[in-house]
């Protein structure tokens, strides 16, 4: 009998990768994350609101991000600020290393178009 076990979080989905990357620089609220992800990915990844919060929920449950603060935004409104945790930071670094290895391998073979 073969047991297949998931031992790694890699590869990350693009949404997760860019959300973690966005929070790596500084804590942000949902709207700022959505804008930053669009800018980081040069417009290639646009998060819908439902995708953003479904992903944030998963990251919170997994302990990769945490709620830092709630900032009041007018009467009865507050924005929740999220920050990346140490665990989330480790996952991001591991993913970047994995991507680096992939790109390095391509460079080693001098694939046309790769500097």
């Amino acid at each position: 009998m073969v047991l297949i076990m998931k031992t790694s979080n890699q590869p990350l989905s693009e949404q997760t990768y860019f959300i973690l990357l966005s929070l790596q620089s500084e804590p942000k609220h949902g709207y700022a994350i959505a804008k930053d992800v669009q800018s980081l990915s040069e417009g290639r990844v646009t998060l819908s609101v439902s995708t953003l919060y479904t992903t944030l929920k998963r990251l919170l449950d997994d302990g990769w991000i945490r709620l830092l603060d709630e900032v009041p935004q007018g009467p009865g409104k507050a924005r929740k600020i999220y920050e990346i945790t140490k665990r989330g930071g480790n996952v991001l670094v591991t993913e970047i290393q994995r991507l680096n290895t992939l790109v390095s391998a391509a460079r080693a073979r001098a694939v046309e178009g790769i500097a």
Partner: protein
Amino acid sequence: MTKLLAFLIKIYGLLIRLFPPNFRAEFEDQILQDFSDLMNDAHRKGKYPLLQFCVRELINLPINLLHIHLKESSMITALRSQPANLGLRGALVFGLSLGFMILANGVALSIEPRVEYWMSGWLQGLSIRPLLDWTGFVLIGLIFGCLFAVLFGDRSQYLHYMLVGTFGWLLQLCVYNYLEYFFNFRVLLSAQENLYLTNLKIILSGAMFGLIFTLPHSERREVLRTLVIYVAAYPMLTYFYVSMIVNSSISNTALRLAPLAILWLALLGGIFAFAWKYNSNPEMVLLLIAGAMGSIVLKFVVLLVAFLFIPPVPPEGFLYDHPSFWSVVLILTAAHTIFGVLFGFLLGWILGIQKENPLQPVAA
């Protein structure tokens, strides 16, 4: 344009109520605020980016809904655990049951002539069509009752919900089909009069559906007994009353629709009186009116669209051996499912508002 944006935010606000309660409690305000801000950003960029934004949200929402529900628990458990999410449950109850009813009706129509033919020697000319029809109606009523109980009911009172659903279904079906079955009104009345009568029946049946939603929540135990009396009394009274009209001289005059309209008013009044007796909550009236009006408006719109796809109706109707029979059945099934989902959502939504603002129940 600002009105459109406000409307879209309102619609999105309703849609995110489909998320599980825990998720909503944590993110609902944030989601709405970000949706509004991002939509305004898209709007500032122009019409095309706004359209792109709306389409993206529309496509992603059901996927994320499914994802979250599957993650939190099974879909059915999630539905049953959400007292405020009656709109979705109502939509499922009606969408599934009405679609199933039309499909089952199509199957029955295609089988009945063969069964009748096989049994013709044994029956010696007796028609079993009414028996087969009514057996089908009762079975569909039972299925509706089961769906109603599973999707809409409290776990401790499944049987109560199931019986109310079944008898409530039969109540609207009895009156709806009675006039055609026993008096063949399609032939007796002119096309215009038939159209009036059909519309009145749709309104009546909508109010009766509103009654089904109202009754199980009543604290009174004799609700079910009274419902059974109504199921028996309504067709009987209708039969004797209409017999009287048909046998009188008025049936040959232009005034023949007037006594039928009086009958309709009496039946509708009876439904309001019944609901009021066991659930004297003023918002219950709103539910019945929404059922009555929603039924006719939504059915009109959905069937109007459906008839764009249905080929011209032959004079004898689409008999089971007509080449377009099954495509017509499938189009009508889809149309009634859509009607059921919209209608059920309307009733469930109103009931949800009622439950969020409960008044004191009538003492047992």
